[in-house]
């Protein structure tokens, strides 16, 4: 026998068996393991959720009664801006990226993400971005205060923090792009044999479409904020009318990014809910293919409706008509999804564990948020709603009982798989009821405030709005403090408890490959790809 290169023998072939993670803090810095990085993303997003939530409570505290009580108007505006930036880029997007990291490889039978080192980078850029954004609070002139849209010329009045804000956006954008590329490459190339695109779990499908949206719109936003920077510091006039520019161009650029961004925040929620409902209804998902096509349609339509955010800047009637009808069209694929979820539950053998409760609340409350969106798509009516609390109520109904509820549902659904222990079901249900009641107490009165004419982004208001604002603030504080219970439930499950089975939920193994792995899964899972029939 001759061997021309290194060969294994009896003593060596078991050398690099299933080794666990490295020890110590540096494990988390150098890790390229998709589960570690998923965990890092989710812990970061939870911290950001609490920070952004604390800012929301500052806002609601000031708005509890008319008059100026606790903060000055400048700081109030900084809070509204940072709350939005942190919740969108720091809490919701990283939380979905964390779930994608944890779940996509084990759902498609892949051993890891396609580009593990890129994955490490895309996470570790985030904390630097957030520290930089938070540091703007302590700079001359304070944090940015022009709202998350950063409209010029208002945003150009920001003090020293302006370039740091732009740099933060670039860093977070690079992180998102790298995560999106990784997810697309993983799903396209690393599916287990037999796992065709039309057998992909819905969570994976929705993430593929989300990743494509991210890739498509991020350069537009990067270009827009760079133009803001050059307008302020390098004498260009992209958005300066006095120099031949046009501030409305920024609005087009921003919303060409901003509207698909809304779907970036909601499509993975659709995926999570589409995983949970069939499990607890004990039925396959109704209309799988139509769900895939509906998601793709929503993604495509999101590129052609951006100017419905700009009706009040003035637009030709043909433009108003086009954007009105195009926006209304989105209700069709969204309706397909809602009816499919309901049809999945119809005559199912349903049980109501915490993930299912959150999923059902999602379907009901997201649909309400969708309906108010439909009201705003009508351009003449939008002239009344624009920049009022009706808008605040609408997008919070979409993002809190929408995205955040889906994240909570997903956390309860997969937490036993991640930790190996069941969470406390009694506390989970308590968390659900506190959260669901308080979220409605917070945001439902804001519809009335908006219809009565209360503008958004103001620290003081006329006394006629006092009662609804008081209710809204009470709801916000109950909602905020209820989330401490959520953190306690997670920590409790991480530390131990009732051991979770591999399947976790009755019959779940029929709904995905992840339930065929042990709970928790080995550090390296699916080293050998399964065959999907």
């Amino acid at each position, binding site marked *: 026998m001759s061997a021309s290169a290194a060969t*294994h023998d009896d003593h060596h*072939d078991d050398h690099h068996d299933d080794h666990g993670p490295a020890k110590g803090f540096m494990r988390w810095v150098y890790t390229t393991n998709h589960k570690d990085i998923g965990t890092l993303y989710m812990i970061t997003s939870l911290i950001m959720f609490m920070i952004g939530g604390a800012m929301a409570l500052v806002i609601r505290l000031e708005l509890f009664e008319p008059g100026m009580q606790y903060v000055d108007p400048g700081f109030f505006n900084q809070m509204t801006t940072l709350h939005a930036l942190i919740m969108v880029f720091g809490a919701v997007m990283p939380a979905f990226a964390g779930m994608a990291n944890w779940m996509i490889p084990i759902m498609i039978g892949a051993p890891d993400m396609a*580009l593990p080192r890129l994955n490490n980078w895309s996470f570790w850029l985030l904390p630097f971005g957030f520290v930089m954004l938070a540091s703007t609070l302590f700079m001359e002139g304070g944090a940015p205060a022009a709202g998350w849209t950063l409209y010029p010329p208002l945003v150009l009045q920001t003090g020293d923090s302006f370039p740091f804000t732009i740099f933060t956006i670039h860093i977070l954008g690079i992180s998102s792009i790298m995560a999106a590329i990784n997810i697309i490459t993983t799903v396209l*190339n690393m599916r287990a044999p037999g796992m065709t695109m039309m057998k992909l779990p819905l969570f994976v499908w929705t993430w593929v479409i989300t990743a*494509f949206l991210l890739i498509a719109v991020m*350069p*537009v936003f990067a270009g827009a904020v760079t133009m803001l920077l050059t307008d302020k510091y390098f004498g260009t006039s992209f958005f300066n009318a006095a120099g031949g520019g046009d501030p409305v161009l920024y609005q087009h*650029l921003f919303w060409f990014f901003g509207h698909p961004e809304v779907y970036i925040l909601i499509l993975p929620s659709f995926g999570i809910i589409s995983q949970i409902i069939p499990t607890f209804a004990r039925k396959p998902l109704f209309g799988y293919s139509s769900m895939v096509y509906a998601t793709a349609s929503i993604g495509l339509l999101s590129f052609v409706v951006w100017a419905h955010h700009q009706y009040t800047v003035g637009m030709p009637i043909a433009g108003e008509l086009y954007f009105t009808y195009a926006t209304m069209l989105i209700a069709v694929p969204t309706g397909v999804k809602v009816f499919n979820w309901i049809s999945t539950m119809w005559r199912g053998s349903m049980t109501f564990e915490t993930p299912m409760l959150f999923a059902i609340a999602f379907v009901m409350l997201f649909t309400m948020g969708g309906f108010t969106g439909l009201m705003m798509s009508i351009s003449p009516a939008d002239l009344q709603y624009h920049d009022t609390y009706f808008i605040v109520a609408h997008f919070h109904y979409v993002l809190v009982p929408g995205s955040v509820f889906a994240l909570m549902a997903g956390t309860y659904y997969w937490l036993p798989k991640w930790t190996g222990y069941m969470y406390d079901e009694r506390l989970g249900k308590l968390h659900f009821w506190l959260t669901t009641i308080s979220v409605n107490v917070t945001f439902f009165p804001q519809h009335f405030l908006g219809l009565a004419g209360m503008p958004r982004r103001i620290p003081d208001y006329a006394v006629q709005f006092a009662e609804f604002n008081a209710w809204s603030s009470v709801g916000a504080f109950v909602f905020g403090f209820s989330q401490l219970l959520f953190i306690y439930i997670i920590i409790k499950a991480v530390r131990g408890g009732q051991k979770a089975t591999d399947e976790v939920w009755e019959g779940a193994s029929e709904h995905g490959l992840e339930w065929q792995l042990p709970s928790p899964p080995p550090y390296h899972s699916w080293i050998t790809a399964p065959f999907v029939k």
Partner: protein
Amino acid sequence: MIKTEQGVPGRQHRIILTANASMTARQMHFFLAIALLFLGMTATGFVMLGAWPVLPFAGLEWLLLAYCMRKTLDRNALREVITLADDVLIWEQGRLEPERSLRLQSAWVALEWGESRNRNHARRLFLRSHGRRTEIGAFLTEDERATLAATLTRLLSDNQKYMR
């Protein structure tokens, strides 16, 4: 994936093992073309409106996407080739060319199953000869490993009959 080629019946066979990869080069090019079309249309539209800084960002992003997909496709090229010619079995592993290889006398080769690395993983398949063993087809699924073992056992047996 297992592909078997035959030279002289009973004497020369080649088995080519490739790692699981769900993306082909054609699919990758198709996806990149769609991304280029989309980013190109968007960036061109905004350039025409005067927002030219969108263009370099879109271009850089597409290049990064193309680079990452290309790297992934290169990794798909890992393959093992087992050649059985007369009384010799040659095992080679590599991407564009063999990076590891092994030459064994086929009469002394035996196939051996080993324990999986851990629970839920497939059992491992080894070529054993003269007290040393080498794992083959580590990237195959359990079903594919079983097929490989059966095919190789049959070919080795045929080869022995022929050599006698």
